[in-house]
């Protein structure tokens, strides 16, 4: 697992695509949080990173699939998957290695956004009047969300040998799981069940986490989503092995 993990991170960071993906993510975030007048912090007027944590899930929805799309799809395509399977490594270790590598890459992409924090701290009145602990909490929340997205990304990557297809599937599933359920719960005909349906989606669970409140149930939920998708990936890998 460790060798897979290292190999995965290295191969990603050695490709130019990686820097392009991270660059696009950081430009989008930067524009949304600082430049676009509808969302920019200057309009809001308070030293609060809420805007960042509210928008990040939508941008990560594209970033993470782009990071993970390669993970299994490429192995399948280039035939190295079979090769790997002949090595003394189990499917579980393989996908866990890829999963954690993806998570670390997301983490690396998020680090530069700390610039926002320092800028806000500088702009706040008085200087440094910013809720540091709350922001750390919100970052932790964002990482939990990212871990679920990564799980979804790895799963999608196992479904197809085409990276683009994997990417699209991952974005789609992430979108449905993040927003779909709360949108359904808003529909009039489910008003009886709306809370329960809402709770299936990630949005309802991210709500508190993104503000810096670490609720055990929300954490459990995100870990559950990750493990479900990793479980599903495991199943897909096994099925493929026995069907081929």
């Amino acid at each position, binding site marked *: 697992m460790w060798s897979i993990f290292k190999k995965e991170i290295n191969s990603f960071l050695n490709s130019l695509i990686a820097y392009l993906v991270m660059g696009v993510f950081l430009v989008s975030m930067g524009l949304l949080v600082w430049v676009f007048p509808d969302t920019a912090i200057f309009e809001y007027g308070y030293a609060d990173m809420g805007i960042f944590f509210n928008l990040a899930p939508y941008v990560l929805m594209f970033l993470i699939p782009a990071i993970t799309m390669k993970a299994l799809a490429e192995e399948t395509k280039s035939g190295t998957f079979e090769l790997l399977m002949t090595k003394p490594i189990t499917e579980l270790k393989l996908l866990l290695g890829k999963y954690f590598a993806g998570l670390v890459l997301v983490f690396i992409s998020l680090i*530069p956004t700390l*610039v926002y924090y320092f800028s806000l701290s500088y702009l706040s*009145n008085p200087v440094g009047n910013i*809720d540091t602990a*709350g922001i*750390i909490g*919100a970052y932790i929340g964002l990482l939990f969300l990212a871990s679920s997205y990564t799980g979804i990304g790895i799963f999608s990557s196992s479904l197809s040998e085409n990276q683009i297809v994997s990417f699209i599937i991952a974005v789609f599933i992430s979108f449905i799981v993040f927003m779909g359920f709360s949108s359904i719960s808003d529909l009039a005909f489910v008003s009886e069940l709306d809370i329960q349906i809402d709770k299936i989606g990630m949005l309802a669970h991210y709500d508190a986490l993104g503000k*810096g409140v670490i609720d055990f149930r929300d954490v459990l939920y995100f870990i559950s989503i990750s493990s479900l998708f990793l479980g599903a990936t*495991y199943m897909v890998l096994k099925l493929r092995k026995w069907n081929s």
Partner: protein
Amino acid sequence: MEFLKRKSTEYILKFLILFTLVVLVNLGFRYQIFRIDMTEENRFSMNDATITLLKNLEEPVYVEVYLEGDINSEFTRLQTAIKQTLEQFKTYAYGNLQYNFVNPDQASSANARNEFYRYLIDKGIQPTTVFDNKDGKKSQKLIFPGAEISYGGKSLPVILLNGNNAAGASEAITQSIENIEYELANAIKSLANVDRKSIALYQSKESASGSVLKGLKDAVSQKYDLIPVQNTARLQNFDAAIFIKPTKDFSNSELYDIDQYIMKGGKSLFFLDGLMMDVDSIKDYGALALPVETGLDDLLFKYGVRVNKDIIQDVNSGNFPIVTGNLGKDAQIQLLPWPYYIILNNYADHPIVRNMDAVYGKFVSSIDTVLAPDITKTPLIFTSDYTRVLNGPIHISFESLKEDVKPENFNKKNVPVTYLLEGEFNSAYQNRLVPKGKDESKRLNKSESNSIIVASDGDLLLSEINKKNNQPFPLGVDPYANRPSNFANEQLILNMLNYLLDDDGLIISRSKDLKIRPLDKVKAQEDKLLMQLLNVALPILLIVLFGLIRFYWRKRKYAKFNE
């Protein structure tokens, strides 16, 4: 049954088991609330009393918030905070709470909209005018910063904008945000509360006529049963007693009843005047404010405070209309500052008065404390920094209005006018003979832990009367005031009663302290471009730098490898 033996079936089954397990675990911990609020002021945590209240709801609560639509950024902050609070309420109420935000402007026609406005105002949700300056265009609009809460077929309006206006709009919004939890929880509690506490309203026949008390009655009876009482022996049946501007001299036996009521744990609120003055009795030549002798002074002295026989003038005062001259046949009426009508907005940091808007006092006296062991005396309300204390008897006339208020005469500051007394009170009848007809063996010499509030203004809880139709205004309305909102006299008495009577500590949520973290406006304007550039470009530069370092590091590593 062949498919059962297949390997693929095994893995599908394994996944289904995992799925079921995960769902079960999540369901199992559904009600396990364990959370860490990382925010500095624990912004997203609620008071235990609120949580208990919400957990124990038996029927669904519906909350309709009317703050929605095109509102400015200050009010958006309030709106967001209301949403967040209600979202948390929902968490703790396990589905027994639903809320939605209604835009009062959304109507098919202007007529229907005005109809809806009227409907809201009739419900008791007063609008606020908001001036917005966006892109150089000034606009003005009505918004309704309030909500309606329904529970079990009853409903209550809740005003969610209630900070101290003197502190500025932004600060008032912050204070309102701090109070959201209390306001909402308190309304839910009054609706859900089955065993309503009963309060005796003591008024002597000669004093306050019925109509000036209407505002008080309307306000208090939403949550408590307020019953007028004249016979002090009946006080024993009540949870609290409010004494408003008593003028009569209580008999020894009546005083004994009051004393023993307090000894037995009855909560008491005294609104007393040191000097008696009624503005309607001021004629052309003025009137004399004379000391009121009620006999209550002896009791209060024993409990630890003394309402002085004086009247306070304050620079922070309201206005009063006065005839300043004649223009032809018509009298010329002008509003002049009337330093006897004091605007009090200088509060202690105590849940009762924190974040409250100003209250309006008329002919207020000062209060001194006297030695009383085991009693904690907390001053709640103070006068402003420019106060003058006049000892009685005083001649008060409208003539004095015309003289300019001379600041150098106002050399006292922050005179306390309301005290909260808490502790074990000593009876005023300790070591004394009990009045005739009372049973000495039943006398209590010391109370259990109890609390008393003494305010040195009998008019605090009285409504102004509309001279045009003789109807009373709601409590806290000054007919001559030029203020955006009513004075908080109503909120004051409700907070006091909540503090004294609610043992579950809901009012503690009023001591929430939020910090505002504004951007430095000047800096934000000056450095805007730089900041935008920095925040868009620097993260990318960091990533590129990271890539380059990696690249060269690897090159070196492999170069070495080749050697």
